[in-house]
């Protein structure tokens, strides 16, 4: 629907690249629909995990890559989403869809509560406030056994049904995750190409100039942060039924660091970056499992080298190569 609308607008340049994103998302989803056939349960699980993490990274990409805000609480928000969904579905018997929406809405609201005071002061204080928040969330998840099960976690998290179809099997749940991921990715794609996306970008590039053009800095900054957090909540709501058992460890502060690295590795500020970043950060380690903990070192070192050589990440590197190839043509979009 949206590709038709956009075809009529005269603006090109940036426009073309964005349609490329739309096509890539839809085509990629079509391919991923069939890929897991014959891959076995574990391989399918890893693919689903990749998509779930991509959602969290997408959200952080909006916060960091588009609005330029350092958030160190993305994994904590994901934890809140995962526990909210796990608790609502297991203890209250709520259906998954309602839990999913509540997880996202809860994280959105928390994002506003957290961001408002921090951004009132100074933009880089958000990093420290989210760092504190992240640790507090982890403490609550670990200590409040009556609610969260403490270090023993919560188990037997049910998988949703899709119009009466059960998604208990690995392939069925994979496809379910795929649909949700595609919807969320397209929603973000729409937002980035709307005037909001332009305002987010202006905020990152030059907040003072943006303010002088009437862009309400605080509103857009808070929105970017809250929407980014909501995506983490959505990711958590899918993560819980995917792994069927959750404990506090994947939502610790170091996990938030790791998510930031994925944003940067993929290409901060590029819409397809999160998928590449999560591929590097989630799928690669699963394949390198036999190396023990070394993959973490390898991944972190790759990110450092990438940051030194090309801070725009893998997608930035690809784009740079692509532009170099067609040099005489007009090097438009960045």
């Amino acid at each position, binding site marked *: 629907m949206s590709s038709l609308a956009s075809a009529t607008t005269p603006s090109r340049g940036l426009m073309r690249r964005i349609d490329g994103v739309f096509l890539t998302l839809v085509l990629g989803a079509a391919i991923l629909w069939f890929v897991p056939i014959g891959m076995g349960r574990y391989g399918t699980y890893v693919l689903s995990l990749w998509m779930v993490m991509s959602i969290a990274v997408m959200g952080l990409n909006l916060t*960091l890559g588009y609005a330029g805000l*350092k958030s160190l609480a993305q994994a904590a928000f994901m934890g809140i989403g995962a526990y909210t969904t796990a608790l609502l579905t297991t203890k209250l018997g709520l259906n998954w869809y309602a839990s999913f929406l509540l997880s996202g809405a809860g994280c959105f609201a928390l994002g506003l509560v957290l961001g408002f005071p921090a951004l009132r002061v100074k933009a880089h204080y958000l*990093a420290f406030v989210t760092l*504190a928040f992240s640790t507090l969330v982890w*403490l609550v998840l670990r200590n409040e056994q009556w609610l969260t099960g403490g270090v023993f976690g919560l188990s037997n998290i049910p998988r949703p049904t899709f119009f009466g179809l059960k998604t208990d099997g690995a392939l069925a749940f994979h496809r379910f995750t795929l649909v949700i991921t595609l919807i969320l990715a397209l929603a973000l794609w729409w937002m980035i190409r709307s005037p909001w996306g332009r305002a987010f970008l202006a905020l990152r590039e030059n907040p003072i100039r943006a303010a002088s053009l009437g862009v309400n800095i605080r509103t857009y900054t808070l929105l970017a942060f809250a929407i980014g957090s909501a995506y983490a909540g959505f990711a958590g709501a899918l993560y819980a039924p995917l792994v069927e058992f959750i404990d506090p460890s994947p939502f610790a502060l*170091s996990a938030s660091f790791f998510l930031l*690295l994925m944003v940067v590795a993929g290409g901060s500020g590029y819409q397809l970056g999160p998928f590449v970043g999560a591929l590097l950060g989630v799928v690669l380690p699963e394949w390198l499992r036999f190396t023990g903990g070394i993959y973490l070192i390898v991944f972190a*070192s790759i990110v450092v080298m990438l*940051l030194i050589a090309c801070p725009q990440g893998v997608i930035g590197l690809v784009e740079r190569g692509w532009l170099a190839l067609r040099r005489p043509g007009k090097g438009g979009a960045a």
Partner: protein
Amino acid sequence: MVTRQPEPLRARLRLPFLVDQEKPMAEFLAYLIAGLATGAIYALAAIGFTLVWQTSQTINFAQGEFVMLPAILVLASAQFLGLPMAMAVLVGIVAFILLFGFGFKKVIVDPMIRHGVLPLAIATMALSIVMKEGAKDGFSAEAQRFPSFLPAETITFAGISISLQHVAIIVVACLAILGLQWFVTGTRLGRQMQATAQNPNVALILGIPVAQMVMLTFLINAGLAALASVLISPIYLAKFSNGEVIGLFAFIAAIVGGFNQVRGALAGGLIVGVIDSLAAAYISTSYRLAVPLVLLVVIILVKPEGLFGRPEERRV
């Protein structure tokens, strides 16, 4: 440290100093001194963090790992090179300062800073992962005993039992900080470094060798971290994951103190150390971390320039 079972919420919320009869003054003083000791160590880390931040805009998210690693390097050089402990300490610390003072500046900060503050901050996060996992895979995943070079006895003075180790830590850390303070204010080199920290651009105009001064702060940071490591590891044992909490406390101490001077970071460190120790003893061991974190958030909201910092004007 006293470990307790998690209590019901109501028990946690009572006011310990006023109500609790079973904890006498002596015990309170012991906790206070223990808090000052760990606080002095946090102050060392916070001062280095602040110095490096000021001179080069580097927000070092690996600061906790900087305190964790030297002890591991010391133990590793004792184990793998067969050195006697005193030698191992020397080798470990020198190696650390070379790698994470000089090397950190040259290999990570210099090439990254031209891309801006944000990529550099993220690179230090990556570095923290590399250091932590490296210590775990390269040395040990278990907590290791670390020898103390300070007296370990407890003396009883006027009915109060005091750990000499804690007192010695406070003395050593304070001497180091006083030495640094003297260096900064009392020597030409130190004043040049201070000028660089306050305003690198003006320092450059004044003919101060800014690049060398920035390097100096990185070396001092590594040195302070190594000292903190040697002081804290006998208490907490040397473990790859120690940096998480220490780093958190260093950030909190730096922000609470005002992010811009030795004095502030020292006060911030001591405040945070004492609060942590008392919170663990009187409020709840499982939520001891929460108390300094809440303090951090309150400071950011109420007095964002820190307890000892100056507010800054928004400029275009």
